[in-house]
């Protein structure tokens, strides 16, 4: 498969097995800056494995992943984690906020880990919390907010470093439809305004409808639906 010029992240012929299980069997992927791509397909088909490979969390057995012209699979562990910290943002099904920290401290955390001062980090964090309409929760701890609110805090935290790629694995999976849609609306709006690419794994069609296009993963193989039709 040929990948369109100007792609930010490209994966070719990814293979990954876990013991006897083939999780990826020649999967392909590409995404442009500012593009929202939904990854769909049945349970166990390899969607999360694909996302983890693209994000440099899991190393594929073979195949290539290029981010901004650099081969991710041949980077050292420390190069890869630097890439994750500086260029990527993550949102998962369950917010994964640190329970001991307040919401604003949670959102500011990635900036603190990158060396920002507390004051500067929390100022930027609060700006993102305003955009996601959760700034009034700044002093609360994750245990004191609702699921929908917590997920918006998690989206703010994922975006606070101004990532070039946002990886979201079932970001609305634990929410009711009203909250899920609001999270998607805010997430895609924020990503578009910063020209971030979004890799969105979801099995919900109404969530995928916020994407620009979708790929389908079946038995570890991907199908780009735009290039099929």
């Amino acid at each position, binding site marked *: 498969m040929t990948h369109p010029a100007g792609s930010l992240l490209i994966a070719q012929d990814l293979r990954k097995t876990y013991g006897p299980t083939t999780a990826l069997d020649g999967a392909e992927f590409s995404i442009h800056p500012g593009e929202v791509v939904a990854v769909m397909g049945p349970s166990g088909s390899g969607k999360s494995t694909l996302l983890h490979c693209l994000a440099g969390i899991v190393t594929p057995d073979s195949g290539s992943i290029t981010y901004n012209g650099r081969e991710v699979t041949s980077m050292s562990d420390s190069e890869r984690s630097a890439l994750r910290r500086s260029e990527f943002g993550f949102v998962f099904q369950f917010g994964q906020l640190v329970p001991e920290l307040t919401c604003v401290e949670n959102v500011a955390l990635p900036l603190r880990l990158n060396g920002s001062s507390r004051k500067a980090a929390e100022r930027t964090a609060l700006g993102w919390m305003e955009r996601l309409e959760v700034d009034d929760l700044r002093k609360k701890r994750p245990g004191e907010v609702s699921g929908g609110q917590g997920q918006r805090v998690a989206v703010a935290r994922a975006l606070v470093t101004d990532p070039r790629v946002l990886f979201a694995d079932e970001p609305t999976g634990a929410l009711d439809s009203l909250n899920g849609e609001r999270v998607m609306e805010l997430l895609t709006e924020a990503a578009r305004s910063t020209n971030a690419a979004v890799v969105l794994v979801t099995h919900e*069609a109404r969530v995928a*409808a916020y994407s620009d296009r979708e790929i389908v993963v079946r038995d570890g193989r991907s199908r780009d639906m735009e290039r099929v039709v």
Partner: protein
Amino acid sequence: MSIGHTLLGLLESGPRHGYDLKRAFDEKFGHDRPLHYGQVYSTMSRLLKNGLVEVDGIEAGGGPERKRYAITEAGITDVERWLATPEKPEPYLQSTLYTKVVLALLTRRDAGDILDTQRSEHLRSMRILTDRKRKGDLADQLICDHALFHLEADLRWLELTAARLDKLREAVTR
């Protein structure tokens, strides 16, 4: 639902007589509405005229139900095209989609492909509605939501069917 394409699809697995075609159709797809013989004859004569089927033999005793029909190459191409073209998303699609999935299984095509193509077509409509919703007022949002939930219902049915393809294949090819 296209009766012509359904009968053609049934013929693809082997030549059949008119009465046999009607029986197969009723058994697989006609649960609530069996075909009339008249529909079978008029459909078959149209397919004959268009070169999609040919007469493969006639049993003694005459009568149109005694003709044996076989699908032609052009007919197979026609079935292929019909199965590969997604349906326009609209209410009450189930019977057509169900028919396509069953025929794909009967003719050993990839029924998962039909699902993927249809999902893509539905998503295209859902993106337009989502966009309209995002830009619209509350009334627009409610109207679009209604349409979105209906499209989603189709898709949920398709996903569930996809998860049961192996069982369905066993049941229909038995």
